[in-house]
């Protein structure tokens, strides 16, 4: 009971902090829009290269495939946004460690796990809002509506929230370990680009060089992107259930590792 109450209190606290920092709020909302516009403009001609639409389709007879680049890339952009958003988690924890607020909380009988849960809940909430903006913009401005309908949209948000949670774990662990926001951002930047570009996020698999194809196949970003993309393309084109199950399995595995590390380091910090 205390855990639930405390998690809610701390969730509300970090939401307030987010909404009261206009600059932070502005950029967290603008970022997905920029990504959507920038990447889809940059790579828009991809769609006219022979082999683009069908190459990512699993079945022989695609009924939907990807009529334009936005419909293909929206999955990757949603992912990319979740990725960079998740890394803010760690910096928020660094703030609380440095300001002494974590210690202040620890001197109260607050439920210890609630401190982490409140944080993770806030991050998931933020990434769901951001993803909704991207998907909404996709529908309204580019006419990209998932073949799987509203349910598909909700599933996409669920996958993204889960993915964000797993990666927030990495950033939290880094924050607790290094106690430096600069380190979190530095390592995050170092990880983001290789993982993103060596995946099917922005480019179909058959456009990648051979060695990268192999990397991409095992890259969790690709696996998650494919699940989201399958929901966009629909079961007529891609194996939705197969992709979803794989994605949830892989993300769960990552989450166990990253959140496990976070829990371990958190225990060390709180003594």
């Amino acid at each position, binding site marked *: 009971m205390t855990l639930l109450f405390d998690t809610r209190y701390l969730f509300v*606290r970090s939401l307030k902090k987010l909404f009261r920092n206009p600059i932070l709020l502005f950029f967290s909302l603008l970022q997905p829009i920029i990504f959507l516009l920038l990447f889809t403009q940059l790579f828009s001609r991809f769609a006219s290269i022979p082999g683009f639409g069908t190459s990512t389709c699993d079945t022989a007879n695609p009924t939907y495939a990807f009529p334009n680049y936005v419909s293909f890339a929206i999955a990757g952009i949603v992912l990319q946004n979740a990725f960079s958003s998740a890394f803010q988690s760690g910096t928020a924890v660094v703030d609380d460690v440095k300001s002494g607020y974590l210690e202040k909380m620890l001197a*109260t009988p*607050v439920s210890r796990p609630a401190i982490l849960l409140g944080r993770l809940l806030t991050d998931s909430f933020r990434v769901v809002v951001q993803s909704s903006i991207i998907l909404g913009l996709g529908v309204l401005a580019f006419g990209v509506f998932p073949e799987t309908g509203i349910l598909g949209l909700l599933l996409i948000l669920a996958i993204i929230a889960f993915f964000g949670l797993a990666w927030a774990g990495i950033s939290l662990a880094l924050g607790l370990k290094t106690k430096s926001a600069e380190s979190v951002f530095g390592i995050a930047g170092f990880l983001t680009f290789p993982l993103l570009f060596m995946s099917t996020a922005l480019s179909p698999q058959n456009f990648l060089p051979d060695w990268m194809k192999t990397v991409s196949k095992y890259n969790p970003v690709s696996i998650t992107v494919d699940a989201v993309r399958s929901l966009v393309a629909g079961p007529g084109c891609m194996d939705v259930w197969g992709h979803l199950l794989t994605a949830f399995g892989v993300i769960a595995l990552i989450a166990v590792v990253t959140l496990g590390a976070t829990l371990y380091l958190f225990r060390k910090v709180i*003594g």
Partner: protein
Amino acid sequence: MTEVISVKDLVMIYPDGTKAVDGVSFHVDDGEFFGFLGPNGAGKSTTIKILTTLLHKTSGEAKVAGYDVEKGAGEIRKIVGLQAQETVIDWDLTGKENLILEGNLHQMRGKGLEERVKELLKIVGLEEVADKRAAFYSGGMKKRLDLASVLVHRPKILFLDEPTTGLDPQSRAGMWDYLRQLNRDEKITIFLTTQYMEEADRLCGRLSIVDLGKIVAQGTPSELKGEIGADAINLTFENNNGKDLNGLKGEGKKILNGLQGVTEVMNTDMGLTVYAKNGAYLIPDLVRAFDGAQIRVASLNLSTPSLDDVFLKHTGKRIRVEELSKQYGGGMFARRRR
């Protein structure tokens, strides 16, 4: 009187090998205003952190309100309040929200909490800015909000780690009044650390003087000062006749020890401190003797014994208040020093 804090042979060694607390024993009775007076690095904050369950001690015994700090940590957290050395509040929240959240974390909610928060905001004089974000508060207001935030759950024992460091004199006096009131009217036991002897002298019913992780003296302020049993004459020298300060101190010491009425002579940074049963009578003799030896005295003052003299007697140095580094060095420096 029941003991609410009992500490025996407490030792704290940090992983890097620093022995921050080195075999400390003391007790605090219910309703007491107790102080730890000492310079930076004396182990004051470390002791507070162990007593408030934030740090694990290396060895020794420590009990708060009858609970062992390790086994009874959960119980202790419910009944103590801790104000850390740095002002810790959430700047993005309003004053009121800060207090509500603090109450929430102590499992308080609803009407009772609302009223308690209202009452506290009034007491610390933040009613009018209650709905403004703490980021816009002045330094003194932030400190007051910080204090109010650790009082929301009506703690039985209050731990204050250098509560007035960095405050202007006016805010400091206000804080003193308020702390005294808490102790007297609300019967809250207070454990305070400070590096200001004046603060310890005025507030604490009983105190320990600490240095380098050890308690060097313990008692009421008047007991401690009585221990000196003499007036103090502080002398500083000018560099003269080509003699350096150390040479002058040595020569001065010899002269002083030859004078009647002198009980003790101690080295200080800039000169000497002389203790004498009746300081005022000694001054003419002293001046004459130095004149004869052609040593020019830069300054001379007579004082009744202060806690600083007690500290000097036990440690051979004066308490140096590192105000600047504290104020401008920010949280990180303070954190590392513990």
